[in-house]
């Protein structure tokens, strides 16, 4: 077994942090470690947390992690994704600010900030692999906090077993929530900052919407829960809903089906990338440039350009 993979499996947090960096940078060391870690994945409950900026996603995740640790969960993992600047590639990762000192010191919690590094869809390209590393290291559940909602739907839906959508009263909740398609991806809806006056109204609105259209799973009615994450109010109820959804997925075989579908998508994506790279390496640069320029001069159509390139370097050649 790869020595780094072994150290990760043995609970070495330093090794875990380093392997996460390698996996994030897609280095050969990271691939080698993940190669050996992958067989130990598939156990963790992956929980996506999404919602508009300011709804309190980070605070809610911190409160949930703390609650689960108090309830005896051995290891809780958190991945928090924030956007990279499209201009400089830099990122300001501020989700740790919401971590209370008890959590920051807790050896049973591993928190990692990730920059989106140009990926759209609310996650980074390496988020799925980072989840696999934490899974193999025994972290369960693993919370994945996305870049603010609106565009995050597809990626987190594919990755997570359970999606929590966090709203806050007065955050443009009326039409925004519906427009963003948020109800279509939520297994659990949380109205955070429920000590604010409009909380009950926001909850009713969400419940009315749920009655009009089903959520992502016809056999599961998403609960709408009120929390004040800063004080811990409502957190046990969210934890109970998470557990109920996990039990539902296990009982209905949806857990395996989701897992199977995700891994198929992962395979096809990796295959596309590998085939592209291999094909691209076989096309003479001059040929590629000539066809590209012909397209850019609008002498040929994109489809024709593809035909010419495939003739010049047949993919099965």
């Amino acid at each position, binding site marked *: 077994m790869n020595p780094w993979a072994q150290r990760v499996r043995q609970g070495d947090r330093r090794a875990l*942090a380093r392997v996460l960096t390698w996996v994030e940078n897609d280095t050969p060391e990271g691939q080698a470690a993940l190669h050996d870690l992958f067989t130990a994945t598939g156990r963790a409950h992956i929980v996506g947390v999404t919602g508009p900026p300011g709804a309190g996603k980070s605070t809610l995740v911190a409160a949930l992690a703390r609650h689960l640790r108090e309830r005896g969960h051995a290891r809780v993992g958190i991945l928090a994704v924030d956007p990279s*600047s499209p201009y*400089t590639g830099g990122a300001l990762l501020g989700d740790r600010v919401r971590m209370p000192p008890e959590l920051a010191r807790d050896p049973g919690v591993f928190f990692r900030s990730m920059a989106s590094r140009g990926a759209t869809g609310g996650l980074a390209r390496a988020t799925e692999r980072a989840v696999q590393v934490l899974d193999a290291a025994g972290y369960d559940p693993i919370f994945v906090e996305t870049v603010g909602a609106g565009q995050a739907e597809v990626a987190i839906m594919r990755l997570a077993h359970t999606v929590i959508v966090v709203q806050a009263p007065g955050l443009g909740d009326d039409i925004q929530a519906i427009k963003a398609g948020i109800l279509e991806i939520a297994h659990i809806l949380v109205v955070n900052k429920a000590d604010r006056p409009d909380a009950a109204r926001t909850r009713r609105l969400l419940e009315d919407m749920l009655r009009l259209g089903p959520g992502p799973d016809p056999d599961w009615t998403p609960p709408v829960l009120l929390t004040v994450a800063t004080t811990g109010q409502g957190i046990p109820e969210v934890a109970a809903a998470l557990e109920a959804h996990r039990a539902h997925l296990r009982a209905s075989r949806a857990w395996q089906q989701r897992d199977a579908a995700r891994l198929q998508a992962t395979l096809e994506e990796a295959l596309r990338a590998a085939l592209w790279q291999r094909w691209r390496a076989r096309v003479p640069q001059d040929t590629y440039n000539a066809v590209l320029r012909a397209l850019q001069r609008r002498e040929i159509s994109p489809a024709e350009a593809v035909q010419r390139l495939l003739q010049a370097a047949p993919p099965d050649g």
Partner: protein
Amino acid sequence: MTPRRKIRVLIAKPGLDGHDRGAKIVARALRDAGMEVIYTGLRQTPDMIAEAALQEDVDVVGLSILSGAHMTLVPQVLEALRARGLDDVWVVVGGIIPPQDVPKLLDMGVYKVYGPGAPTAQIAADIQAAVWGTAQPEESPA
């Protein structure tokens, strides 16, 4: 494809002073220099800072200290980092540091000390020189 790997920096404020404007300005400037900056907020203990540096696998820890307690706090942070095997992390200190304390901090193992007027471009350049230029922290975690 980036020719050089991303630099990850932790910006932390140890101690009790509640003023983080300088820390935020530096965090922003390093972000604009293409780095991934993890900001941890106010009132961090040395153990919390070292633990965050471990989990985030940062190349650099930047400490902002305005309280005057740097001669106490900096050795504590360095010790907490060493206790976790993070000897290869570069530590920079910014804040109000009397000139006579600067060589003492450098002797302890601090890489650079910056006063309130330090140009952020210089801080970014120093960090890039350290991480990309000389030592390779990626090779030798304990």
